[in-house]
């Protein structure tokens, strides 16, 4: 269902991905509203990660369109989509393990400032990038580990750095792939607090299995089952929907 | 026209023989690279030592040709187990640079040792009497030894194909090449698998070195000199398979022989250029996995 009330920053129309007879993503229409806090849920194998990979450009669709702020990005490379303002995090930490926390975030602030190609005369811009990175770390309450190597900090902190790097890009749209993955549910409030502090101007799509997190954070939920959108609605409506309960019967 | 056909047949024949030797040596490298993800640039050392030992057994101990080959191959295969367990195992799936450097260091050591024990000159190949001479097939003459070589090589290839495709060991091997973690999860003893496979691969290389001593002369620089060819066979044929390298080796053997015969001024130039573009077109090899 296409919602034209709010401005949609990320839209898919009839997005499909098939491998021969196997259809993994099936005619998905999706809208991410401006400033959204939108969650994508579904049982294992529903095709959530595939959908994310289609959105970010790692996979090419067999059919359908992807639009970002009105621009057609269906054929764009992952790098080009980043230029359009699309950022993502990974379900399994994808960090620079040997580098320090601040160096990790500085990678993306440097990319955001567009100075990644410079060899000469960039020392003041680099200072600026590190300052920017430090500010991001402060937002995440990570500034006390700024100088530590990633491999030497706790997993929970690593997970936060994973998000901090994406934020360093100053994205317009942020896709979070299971940010609470590997975090025990007793600790997930840390992630929740960080998510709540994310700038309201950033439109967020979150893939998650942790239902507590989803229902506390999201204002809109899409349920994906076997590559097909089951429904898209408010958390209350989704929580009451009998079809959704059936799909999750047996699982948490 | 007659002489062109004649030279083509000749080039094909000798090319295939050359390719068979390359295959026997390289198949072990292909499997271990696909299986353990280990860049073993010292693989040629197995072939070299196999050749040296076989020739020494024939020359000094007086073993007959076939026995010398078998004994040297088994010895090399068994000795390689020590190498695998104590030196290589720690580096599996690790930093490629370390693997390259470690194995280059081993090549250096082997080169110097070979020179020390057997001197700097290339060894003369020793052929058994019954395999010398020529046979006449369809009014053409073919060296008996090369016919024997091709026959043996094809037989071994078929045996390998059968083992990999039809036996329990082969199934485990293919599973582990595809996905080591899952293979372990379903109870395959990957360590044992690695060791056994490595030993077989090294033994085959030793056999190839001994059998092919007429084509690839046994000398101290062997492992370095022919390394490029072994790597080409593996890269073009695809890692982790026994069939791909066979095709690649035959192609390489024929192409190299053809180039040396028809355009000797250019030497290996065309081979490398062709191989470069082939790999750019198919980075995983002709029949390789992704």
């Amino acid at each position, binding site marked *: 269902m296409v919602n034209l009330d709010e401005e949609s920053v990320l839209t898919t129309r009839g997005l499909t991905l098939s491998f021969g007879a196997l259809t993994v993503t099936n005619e998905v229409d999706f809208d991410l509203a401006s400033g959204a806090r939108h969650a994508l849920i579904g049982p294992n194998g529903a095709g959530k990660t595939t959908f994310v990979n289609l959105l970010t450009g790692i996979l090419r669709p067999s059919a359908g369109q992807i639009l970002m702020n009105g621009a057609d990005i269906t054929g764009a490379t*992952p*790098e080009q989509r980043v230029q359009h303002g699309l950022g993502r995090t990974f379900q399994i930490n994808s960090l620079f393990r*040997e580098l320090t926390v601040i160096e990790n975030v500085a990678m993306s602030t440097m990319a955001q400032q567009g100075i990644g190609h410079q060899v000469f005369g960039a020392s003041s811009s*680099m200072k600026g990038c590190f300052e920017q990175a430090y500010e991001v770390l402060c937002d995440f309450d990570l500034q006390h580990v700024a*100088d530590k190597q990633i491999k030497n900090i706790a997993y929970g902190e690593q997970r936060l750095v994973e998000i901090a790097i994406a934020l360093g890009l100053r994205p317009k749209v942020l896709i979070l792939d299971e940010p609470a993955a590997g975090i025990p549910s007793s600790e997930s409030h840390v992630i929740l607090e960080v998510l709540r502090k994310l700038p309201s101007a950033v439109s967020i799509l979150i893939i998650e299995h942790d239902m507590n997190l989803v229902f506390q954070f999201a204002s809109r939920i899409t349920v994906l089952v076997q590559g097909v959108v089951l429904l898209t609605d408010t958390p209350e409506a989704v929580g009451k929907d009998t079809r959704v309960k059936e799909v999750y019967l047996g699982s948490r | 026209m007659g002489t062109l056909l004649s030279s083509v047949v000749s080039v094909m024949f000798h090319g295939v023989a050359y390719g068979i030797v390359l295959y026997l040596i390289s198949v072990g490298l292909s499997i271990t690279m696909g299986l353990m993800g280990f860049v073993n640039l010292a693989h040629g050392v197995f072939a070299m030592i196999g050749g040296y030992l076989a020739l020494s057994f024939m020359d000094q101990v007086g073993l007959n040709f076939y026995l010398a080959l078998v004994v040297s191959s088994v010895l090399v295969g068994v000795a390689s187990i020590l190498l695998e367990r104590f030196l290589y195992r720690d580096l599996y799936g690790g930093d490629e640079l370390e693997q390259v450097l470690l194995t280059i260091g081993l090549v250096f050591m082997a080169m110097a040792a070979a020179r020390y024990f057997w001197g700097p000159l290339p060894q003369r190949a020793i052929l058994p009497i019954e395999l010398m001479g020529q046979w006449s097939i369809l009014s053409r003459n073919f060296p008996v030894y090369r016919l024997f070589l091709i026959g043996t090589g094809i037989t071994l290839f078929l045996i390998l194909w059968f083992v990999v495709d039809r036996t329990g060991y082969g199934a485990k091997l293919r599973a582990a090449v595809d996905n080591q973690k899952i293979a372990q999860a379903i109870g395959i003893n990957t360590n044992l698998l690695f060791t056994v496979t490595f030993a077989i691969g090294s033994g085959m290389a030793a056999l190839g070195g001994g059998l092919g001593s007429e084509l690839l002369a046994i000398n101290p620089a062997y492992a370095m000199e022919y390394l490029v060819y072994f790597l080409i066979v593996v890269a073009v044929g695809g890692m982790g398979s026994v069939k791909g390298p066979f095709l690649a080796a035959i192609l390489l053997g024929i192409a190299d022989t053809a180039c040396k015969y028809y355009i000797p001024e250019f030497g290996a130039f065309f081979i*490398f250029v062709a191989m470069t573009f082939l790999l750019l077109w198919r980075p995983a090899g002709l029949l390789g996995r992704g």
Partner: protein
Amino acid sequence: MEAGRFAGTRMMEKHNAETRDTVLVRLLRDRYLRWVEGAILLLILITYITFPTYHTLLSQIFIFTLFVLSLDLLVGYAGLVTLGHAAFFGVGAYSAGLYAIHISPEPLSGLVVATSSAAVVGLVSGALILRTTGLTFLMLTLAVASVVHEILNQAGELTGGADGLRGIEMSPLLGIAEFDFMGNTAFIYSAVVLVVGYLFFRQVIRSPFGRQIVGIRENAIRMRAIGSPVYLRLLAAYTISAGMAGTAGALLAQTNQFVSLSVVTMERSGEALIMLIFGGAGKLFGAFVGVPLYMLLQDLLSRYTPIFWVFWIGLMLVLIVKFAKNGVLGVGTRLLNKYRSRHG
């Protein structure tokens, strides 16, 4: 957020020398860096005075240090394992030699020509092969080097083939310093070029570009996910590295006034890799430690065991990979770490 500004700047100054080992980074804060660099410069000056008969040998050391420095950019910083780097060294050497014979014996312009030729070869071959990774990439570096070797070998009329390129006569450097038999000019020439090359290398490493290269080495997938054009960055690094190697090759041709095919063999590529590892890859000064160390070892060993010395080099390489994979500088760092942790 004011605290953030200053803290960030302090952080950056701490992180300005990018290496594999972050503790070394802290140790190599700017002022320490200056000390080490000053020490190297001093060492160069001292050896000029105290070893008057060894100037030719020393200039060889400088030349190979520059060569290995260029390799460090690829192997140590970009994480690209190559066995074909001698190709660029050779292209530089032959370009400089041919330029001197056929166009002009002026050394500096020859240096520029050689660097550019090597860079072009690097750009073209890199553009082709940088789309691949792992063993395929390694193979292709070997292939490119073999092709270059073959071309130089076969173009006998131009290059002298297996006999080598002779008859290179250089005109005086800057019009004043003649290339003398004592090697004085060669020493100063190669030392200066090495210093300039090092300064350029350091600039590249510490720049945003250099950091991106390290980022690509550590996690290419994440770099793509933050919009970094990985292929283009690597291509740029490859081209720069090739150019630097070409500069070193040109120096060799100009100071020896002779070039042989040995400059473009796999042995040469392998040797450079070994020298780099001995010193430690990705540690800024690895080349400065590894090259003299290797050449000293080679000299010593080959005097005691003329045939067998290769064995000892191989053994050392195996031991280094097993126990000291970050080379001498890595061992030094570990010792410094221990010292610091014991003394606070």
